């Protein structure tokens, strides 16, 4: 009987005993008990299970990978099995465990990539799982289960969408305190679901370290970004802006390339007029501090902050516009160079909303044609529905679609 990755109760002791049984001498037990206390960042743990999925209100960990998969399972049952396996492995990876790096002969492929060493620490990992509109076609009998309001992300007027970086049946957002934790988890999750989920696109993101400066971190345009985000500690506000009645949410992922060479050839003053904030400390133009109110009422003609400045269009702070706020949880991202030798970097925009039409799309409409569009080019991403979290270890994310 094959028992690849069989889960054993009893943890270290049982594992060490098993190892000792295969190794010359019995010193493995002693070695195993001398493990040092884990570093705080490596030991940080977010529960995979819960009313809502982790990785939505969770304060952003420094690293992220967002991957979209297409389902290639032959049957509905195979797809359900794969999604159950995805949650089971995500739960284990988020919890942490001891992994044997290598195994004596006769056991098949290596059980663990070994990227994290013998101890797989949690590293603050969250794995957040979502579904694109394309999953709800006739392949798996899910057409009648498509969440209300979920559709394929449309191409907006200023987009330059590349199919190879857009849409997907299943979204997996991985966030953690270390980059290698993400790569370890991704390899494990993909290996687990190899015959059912085929990768479609992947973007890796990172954040500036918080000790660099107070307030919001900077994007790759060099401006503070995320200052005006809604407060995740305000449960009522989250119910209004993020959670659907059943406890899910809709994610918008936008891979937004920044034309950084072009942007760097623009004067600081021009950049600030396009953004609406001071480049140095992030304050709204004409104000003193990052979190000051831009006070558009006192500037009806846009003499201080132009009417088409990004922050003003994105959030005009009128009573009508406040309901269209979104919870942004994006990352900076950087890939290779294009054929013209220009850097392919920018923003991995991730935002959560309760209602795509009322929120994200309303913001997009306001932003259409803003001066900044010459420098930021959305090239991919998609809309995804993120169901509620798994209730417990027997449950899995998405199980509700299959009952």
């Amino acid at each position, binding site marked *: 009987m094959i028992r690849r990755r069989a889960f054993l109760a009893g943890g270290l002791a049982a594992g060490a005993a098993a190892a000792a049984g295969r190794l010359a001498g019995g010193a493995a037990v002693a070695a195993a008990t001398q493990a040092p206390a884990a570093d705080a960042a490596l030991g940080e743990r977010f529960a995979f299970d819960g009313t809502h999925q982790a990785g939505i209100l969770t304060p952003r960990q420094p690293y992220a990978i967002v991957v979209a998969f297409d389902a290639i399972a032959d049957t509905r049952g195979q797809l359900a099995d794969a999604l159950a396996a995805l949650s089971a492995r995500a739960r284990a990876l988020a919890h942490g465990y001891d992994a044997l790096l290598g195994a004596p*002969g006769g056991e098949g492929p290596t059980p663990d990539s070994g990227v994290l060493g*013998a101890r797989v620490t949690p590293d603050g990992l969250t794995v957040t799982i979502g579904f694109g509109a394309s999953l709800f076609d006739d392949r798996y009998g899910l057409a009648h289960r498509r969440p209300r309001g979920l559709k394929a992300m449309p191409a907006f007027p200023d987009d330059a969408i590349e199919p190879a970086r857009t849409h997907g049946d299943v979204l997996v957002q991985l966030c953690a305190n270390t980059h290698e934790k993400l790569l370890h988890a991704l390899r494990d999750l993909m290996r687990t679901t190899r015959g059912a989920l085929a990768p479609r696109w992947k973007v890796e993101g990172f954040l500036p370290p918080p000790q660099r400066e107070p307030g919001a971190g900077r994007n790759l345009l060099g401006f503070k970004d995320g200052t005006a985000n809604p407060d995740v500690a305000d449960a009522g506000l989250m119910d209004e802006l993020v959670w659907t009645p059943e406890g899910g949410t809709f994610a918008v992922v936008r891979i937004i390339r920044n034309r950084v060479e072009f942007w760097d050839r623009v004067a600081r003053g021009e950049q600030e007029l396009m953004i609406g904030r001071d480049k140095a400390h992030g304050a709204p133009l004409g104000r003193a501090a990052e979190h000051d109110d831009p006070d558009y009422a006192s500037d009806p003609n846009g003499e201080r902050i132009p009417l088409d400045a990004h922050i003003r269009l994105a959030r005009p702070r009128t009573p009508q516009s406040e309901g269209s706020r979104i919870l942004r949880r994006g990352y900076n991202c950087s890939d290779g160079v294009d054929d013209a030798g220009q850097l392919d970097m920018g923003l991995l925009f991730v935002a959560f909303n309760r209602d795509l039409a009322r929120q994200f799309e309303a913001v997009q409409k306001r932003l259409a044609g803003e001066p900044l569009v010459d420098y930021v080019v959305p090239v991919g991403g998609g809309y995804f529905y993120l169901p509620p979290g798994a209730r417990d270890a027997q449950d899995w994310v998405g199980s509700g679609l299959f009952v």
Partner: protein
Amino acid sequence: MRATLLLPGLALALAAGACGDVQRAADGTASAPAPRLEQRVAVSGDVPRARPADFRAPIARYRAHVRRELTAMAADVAALRAALARGDLAGARGAWLAADGRYESIGAAYGAFGPLDAAIDGRPGVLQGGVRSARFDGLHRVELALWGRRSTADARAPAARLARDVARLRSHVGSIAIDPLDYALRAHEVLEDTLQLQLAGVASPWASAALVALEGNVRGTDVVLGSLRPLVVRRNPRVLAQAQAALARLRAELRRLHRRGGGALPRWDALPRRERERVAGLTAAAAEQLAFVPELIDPRPPRRPQRALGTELAQ
């Protein structure tokens, strides 16, 4: 169990609800119970380890397959040359695809073919100067002529040399040494090559014949796995069953593409994205299952692991 496309042990653990143990455990990383590697490919206690001698019959069977395929390939190359002689580009392309598929079906022995493999299937990427190298020859030199240059004349001389090299290889099949360990490894390495070279689009850049190659690779893998069947099945029948199920899915997909193409496989670069994902995903899933075969039947004498204890468990 229906979860044949998941990794075997995971499906098992899920079925047993064993993951719950992880969650019920006391908190704290140091004491956290873990999903634990167990004896994943248990070999029944009364089955002795495979010995090199056990591979004689499988390798003989494989050798017969290689001989048959090379005989057929020689006929394909003859048809190729005939088409070239009459300036028939479409006919030459068809014959080339047939010959290429044949050669891909004997992939389990590439390493044993030595310089003749380089002459027949050498790729420009490994040559100084690439396609401009004087040593660029064989199937892919003909491919360049037929698809890259749309020329039958340009293909005639390399096709003549190809015919000579295939005949030479055919006459050597009986004396080619195939190592038992290499042979066991080919159970999944043929498809690893498919993933690295064919489905990544580098193997036949002009003909984009990855699906033709994949079909040959699957056929070759079937022969290898079939020949090893007795060795595998008495040690762990599930390894064989899961590998065969994964290969069956892949074959069914190729049949579907065949039917849709009216008997011919489409160019790889013309396949819609989702279908490419599916073919590549099924190929990778098959490799994942086939990878359990080699260690199960490893013909080498057992070796105690010589690891320091510290590499086995976290320090």
